[in-house]
Each structure stands twice: as structure tokens, then as C-alpha cells.
């Protein structure tokens, strides 16, 4: 099970099996100490913008796309529009920004894998056709 870790220099919080060797925020080495949910929630606070409208969701997808050398957001603007509407419908109805082309199972662990962007690299459609299941993300050399 993943654990919570806190950088003792800058209070960066990390959820993972082991602490990062280098803090991605302040650059300190071997700076993470085991934390817990109460401490982590206190550090994170509640003053973060919600991704609760289509422009914000699309901006998050664009950031994800821009940082990748292998995948990018599809050029099909109408599909980006429809899918961003869909993930927000699912946020409202099901509690998370789930892929509108999948379906929840009721098993929390499995359903967390449906949050967009999902781990689409493992999907047959990505391997064979260069697209994630819903077509939102494509290989950089595809389309």
C-alpha cells in the first residue's frame, strides 16, 4: 500500500511506495519523512482551485499533453469538448472525472483507474491504433 511522505524542507507531500530521492519542488535530497493523512491534509489545505468547468479540465489535459514527448491531446476539438463535458457529468453524478467511454464497477480500486487521463498506454487501442480508448489522447506520430 502506498504511503504518505513529507519533505522536511518545503513540506512537499508525496503519495507513493517509497519517498522520492530528490524533492521535485525544492530539490533537497533524501528529504522525505513518513507522514500521515492528518498531517498531509493539513499541509495541502483547501485553497486549491477545483477542476469543475470545461475550460479548467481542458487546460489540465493540455498541460499533460504539452509535457509529453510521446502523447498529445487529439486535434479533434469537438471530441475534446464532448469528453470534457462528459468527465464533468461523471464528477457530478459519480464523484470523479471518470472517462465517459468506460463504466464504473463499484470497486473503488478499479474505478480509480478510470479517472481521465487514465493509464491508457496499456490499452490495446493505444498499442494498435495509437489512441486511448476514448480517442482523447493520441501518439505524437499518429492522427
Amino acid at each position: 500500500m502506498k504511503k504518505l511522505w513529507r519533505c522536511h524542507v518545503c513540506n512537499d507531500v508525496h503519495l507513493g511506495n517509497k519517498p522520492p530521492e530528490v524533492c521535485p519542488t525544492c530539490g533537497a535530497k533524501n528529504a522525505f519523512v513518513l507522514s500521515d493523512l492528518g498531517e498531509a491534509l493539513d499541509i495541502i489545505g483547501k485553497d486549491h482551485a477545483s477542476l469543475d468547468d470545461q475550460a479548467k479540465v481542458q487546460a489540465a489535459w493540455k498541460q499533460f499533453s504539452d509535457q509529453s514527448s510521446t502523447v498529445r491531446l487529439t486535434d479533434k476539438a469537438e471530441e475534446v469538448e464532448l469528453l470534457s463535458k462528459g468527465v464533468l457529468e461523471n464528477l457530478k453524478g459519480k464523484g470523479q472525472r471518470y472517462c465517459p467511454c468506460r463504466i464504473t464497477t463499484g470497486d473503488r480500486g478499479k474505478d480509480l483507474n478510470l479517472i481521465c487521463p487514465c493509464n491508457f498506454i496499456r490499452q490495446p487501442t493505444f498499442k494498435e491504433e495509437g489512441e486511448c480508448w476514448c480517442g482523447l489522447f493520441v501518439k505524437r506520430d499518429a492522427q
Partner: protein
Amino acid sequence: MSGTRLIWFHGKECPHCRKLAPVVDQFEAETGIKLERLEVWHNEENAKLMRSLADTIAPACGGDLGVPAFYNEVTGKAICGRIDMAKLVAWAKG
């Protein structure tokens, strides 16, 4: 599952489902066979039915449940994903 329905599980905000709608319309017009269209993100009963068929549908979808998916109650066969007219006809006729 027993029954005689040909079911199309779809999602209201799924682009592939939207693109497939005219193909299904054409299929119905050409064959006279009607599909039962069940939306799964805005109708929990439809979602439950789809989940109950996961053992058949998920493998057809590459391992996880997804839409668009088609389930033939007579043959117990499912197809999923980017479907064309030929695949649809083959699935419907068993």
C-alpha cells in the same frame, strides 16, 4: 443471460458512440432489426445490467468495460469499441 434482445450499451458523452449512431440507424433501416439502446452513465439500471455481463463484454473491450458495446442475448456474444457495419451485421446474425 436469457432473452432475445440485441443490446447497444452506449454513453451520452462518448464520441465513438455518437459517431456510431448513424451506423446503427443505417443497420436498423437496412436489416429491419431493432437494437435496444441502453445509456450507461445516466441510467444506473442500464449500468448494472452491463456490469452483470462483464465476463462477456469486458474481454471484447480489451479487458475493461467500455462503450460502445453490443450484446446479443440469443448468442451471448459481445463486440465492443470501433465497430463498422460488417461487424454489426455479423454480430447480430450470430
